């Protein structure tokens, strides 16, 4: 069982080395790849110093393109399972290892680490979402559940694990600017087993969230349009006919 853990990073020089060290410590058997999304700071140098392989996109393309790079790399290099986590230190690697265990046990094709799931463990300094994020989260949760007829609590989670079926799908289709939600919808529509696992997340250790109220509103609006359009994409069964 060969496993790849990849970390999309855009201007995360403050935290990327720490995250790499943490992943190495809790998952020594996994290969590690940092996908640099056109950082303009020293993210690439920090990641290389920390001993990680770096796939560097020549210009900023958005989280979706960075994640797709990771899936494509995993697919091309014959990994059986892959996982990704954010470079800002919000995602404890031990939790990622738990997601990967679900994949290796073949209980799911795609596992999402959920902050909001009923069983999510709370700890000191654990994750507290802002007001605008809470609104966005509940709106997306409602519509994604409606669209997929499957209950999702944390639609925008950037901590996921996947097997080769998902790698093949995501390396072909992955929305560059609306990655998280559309990919869930796509995976469910393609008949893949998508599962949520409650995880513990931390406050970010570096950088600031990009969400302001206006941006949040626009983000939500864009997300709803994407979800609506996604409902009209062909399903696997129909596409194969």
């Amino acid at each position, binding site marked *: 069982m060969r496993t790849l853990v990849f970390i999309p990073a855009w201007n995360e020089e403050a935290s990327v080395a720490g995250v790499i060290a943490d992943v190495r410590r809790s998952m020594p058997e996994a*290969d590690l*790849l940092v*996908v*640099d999304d056109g950082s303009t700071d020293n993210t690439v140098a920090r990641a*290389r110093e920390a001993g990680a*392989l*770096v*796939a*560097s*996109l*020549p*210009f900023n*393309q958005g989280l979706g*393109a960075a994640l*797709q*790079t990771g899936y*494509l*790399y995993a697919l*091309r*290099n*014959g990994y059986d399972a892959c996982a990704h986590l954010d470079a800002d230190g919000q995602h404890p690697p031990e939790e990622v290892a738990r997601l990967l265990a679900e994949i290796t046990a073949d209980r799911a094709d795609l596992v999402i680490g959920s902050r909001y799931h009923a069983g999510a463990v709370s700890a000191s300094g654990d994750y507290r979402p802002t007001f605008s994020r809470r609104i966005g989260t509940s709106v997306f949760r409602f519509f994604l559940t409606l669209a997929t007829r499957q209950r999702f609590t944390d639609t925008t989670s950037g901590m996921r694990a996947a097997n080769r079926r998902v790698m093949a799908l995501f390396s072909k289709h992955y929305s*560059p600017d609306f990655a998280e939600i559309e990919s869930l919808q796509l995976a469910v529509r393609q008949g893949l087993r998508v599962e949520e696992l409650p995880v513990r997340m931390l406050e970010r250790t570096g950088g600031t969230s990009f969400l302001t109220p206006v941006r949040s509103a626009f983000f939500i609006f864009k997300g709803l349009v994407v979800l609506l359009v996604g409902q009209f994409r062909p399903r696997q069964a129909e596409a194969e006919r």
Partner: protein
Amino acid sequence: MRLLAAAGEAGQVHLTSQTRIVAAVLAVFFMLLILDLIRRDRLQERYSVIWFVAGLGMLAGAAFPGLLELVADLLGVRNTNVALFSIVLLLLLGLALNFSVIMSRQAAQITRLAQERAIEQARNQAEQANGNGSSGEQGLQPEEQRFEG
């Protein structure tokens, strides 16, 4: 104003021969410009077809003003001026959409190109770290061999 109102009532085209000549000359110049852009490699043939169609449309409108009246009738518009502007607007809308489609395709291609380059870079880094190739030699090996060990 009086002229416009008259046109609206009578449903007739009020293109003087002078405006028709000006329109025809403009259309010809427009198509020559397209040809010149292609000749100087500033415009690719496959993106020029739509512009030639637009130029020919302009020319046809100038040569046969009755055509415009016919279209106005078909649209149920009594004022041919309104019909003219509507047609031009729709045409521009179609062109803009066409460009968005082309742009989306190219954006996807650029993204994939960037991703391929990033993956290649990581591969090279891995090869150098593994000592599989001496520095400078980055010959391609079968994919299976690249990350073993």
